[in-house]
């Protein structure tokens, strides 16, 4: 039982990060019907830039409390990552707005590879360790059980919840959010209403990248390191989460992210016993992709996916 609860906790932590990243995929898909495969790399850059910024802050102002250094580093990394997301759309996708759908998809893969190479040039091939600004992050015992959770893990869950709630409220309640929804439903008519579609598309990339930067920073903090390769796997998993929730649907991305984190974590916890030790917990990645395949085969519209047909 305690193992199970521990897996749930771990699953929620991973799931929170998947959800933040999945939102970036799903927002762009909702407006452009484009799967921005470069988003995982944006998350990676967010992680790497955060590490650099934190090192910078620590060297400029040594002795600050860890949480303050982290916040400062993150607040520097977010705008840099936003500019990156904005530029990717302007340079790589906008010229292809009217091209067949396969073209921007291939371009996205090209952007991915480019970003990975650039990251290697800047930060090298070996992992950068996340500065030990939090001191020793001793795990807390949860409910007096043999279940532990670290401060970083608590931060991940709380920050993810706040950001996701903020985004959902923005999209549902503000004028900008209404324009984003209108644009995703009918861009031509949104233009007639006076919405500058290009601005909305840019905003979508910028917002998704900001969330991605936070997720990347949290990921690096959680694993105490990051490298130029992390974007691929985490991107693919977050994409899976977006598909699981129903791509294009914001609440779906959140749900899909959490669900995938839980499936993966619980699955990894029991895969050993279930296969008589044949497969160990390092096989946890198969769960994400099994989920992706099952969803695509049995419910391509995802958990909260839209009905494909719209009434006239």
């Amino acid at each position, binding site marked *: 039982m305690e193992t199970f609860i521990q897996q749930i906790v771990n699953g929620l932590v991973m799931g929170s990060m998947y959800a933040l990243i999945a939102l970036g995929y799903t927002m762009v898909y909702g407006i452009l019907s484009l799967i921005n495969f470069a988003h995982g790399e944006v998350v990676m850059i967010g992680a790497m830039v955060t590490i650099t910024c934190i090192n910078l802050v620590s060297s400029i102002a040594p002795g600050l409390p860890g949480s303050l250094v982290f916040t400062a580093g993150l607040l520097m990394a977010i705008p840099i990552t936003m500019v990156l997301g904005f530029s990717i759309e302007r340079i790589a996708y906008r010229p292809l707005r009217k091209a067949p759908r396969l073209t921007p998809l291939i371009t996205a893969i090209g952007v991915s590879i480019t970003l990975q190479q650039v990251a290697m040039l800047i930060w090298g091939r070996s992992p950068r360790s996340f500065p030990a600004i939090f001191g020793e992050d001793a795990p807390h015992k949860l409910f007096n059980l043999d279940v532990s959770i670290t401060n970083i893990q608590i931060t991940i869950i709380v920050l993810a919840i706040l950001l996701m709630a903020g985004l959902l409220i923005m999209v549902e309640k503000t004028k900008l959010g209404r324009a984003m929804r209108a644009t995703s439903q009918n861009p031509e008519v949104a*233009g007639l209403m006076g919405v*500058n579609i290009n601005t909305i598309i840019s905003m979508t990339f910028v917002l998704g990248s900001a969330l991605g930067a936070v997720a990347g920073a949290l990921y690096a903090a959680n694993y105490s390191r990051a490298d130029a390769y992390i974007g691929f796997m985490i991107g693919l998993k977050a994409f899976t989460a977006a598909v699981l929730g129903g791509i294009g649907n914001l609440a779906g991305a959140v749900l899909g992210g959490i669900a995938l984190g839980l499936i993966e974590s619980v699955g990894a916890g029991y895969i050993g016993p279930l296969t008589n030790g044949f497969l160990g917990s390092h096989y946890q990645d198969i769960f994400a992709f099994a989920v992706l395949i099952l969803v695509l085969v049995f419910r391509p519209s995802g958990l909260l996916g839209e009905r494909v047909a719209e009434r006239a």
Partner: protein
Amino acid sequence: MSTNLLEVKQLKVAYGGIHAVKGIDMHIKQGELVALIGANGAGKTTTLKTLAGMIKPTEGSIVYDGANMAQIPVYNYVERGLALVPEGRGIFSRLTVEENLLMGGYRSNDKVQIMADIERVYGLFPRLKERHKQLAGTLSGGEQQMVAIGRAMVSRPKLLLLDEPSMGLAPIIVQKIFEIIRMIASEGVTMLLVEQNAKLALQTCQRGYVMESGKITVADSAEALLSNERVQQAYLGE
């Protein structure tokens, strides 16, 4: 002698190699109600979309309210008082009725005025008030048309372009819609009305153009068109 609010010269529009509008001239005076009739595929929708800025013409000029519209991006049309009620209504189906109406006021920052305009739309279409929190996609066709017209009203147009507002609606709803159209016109809004129901359009408007395969073939007063033998045969089913 009032001036032309809209003046179209030698307008040509093509979709790739398909020439949908082949050089038309058209003008609308301030406060005028003008009908544009023609068979399916004649190029009426293309004409309206071009006037509304959704499609850029391949040739010709559009001067609206003294401005050459060619260089102006579509999202700046609405604040110049140009609104289109698109063919098939073009509502945002997963926005509520009220959110759809709010989109009509997107370029205005005067929240009080927007809310007053929405209340006015609710006054004209009480069904929309009852359903203001409902997703617009769940409404009946007639109600959706009310949303589309109401949304255009909230944008406070000077020139309202209407593309087949009666399409697919029951006669009693068509009557209601046209009542509102006449009422909007009576407040001084200039209109260009595209209709399959040519008789209703010509009875509503003062002048009319007949469009056939991308060209304007007849332009006359509504009265004259209603009694024109060729128009009667082709469009009035007499």
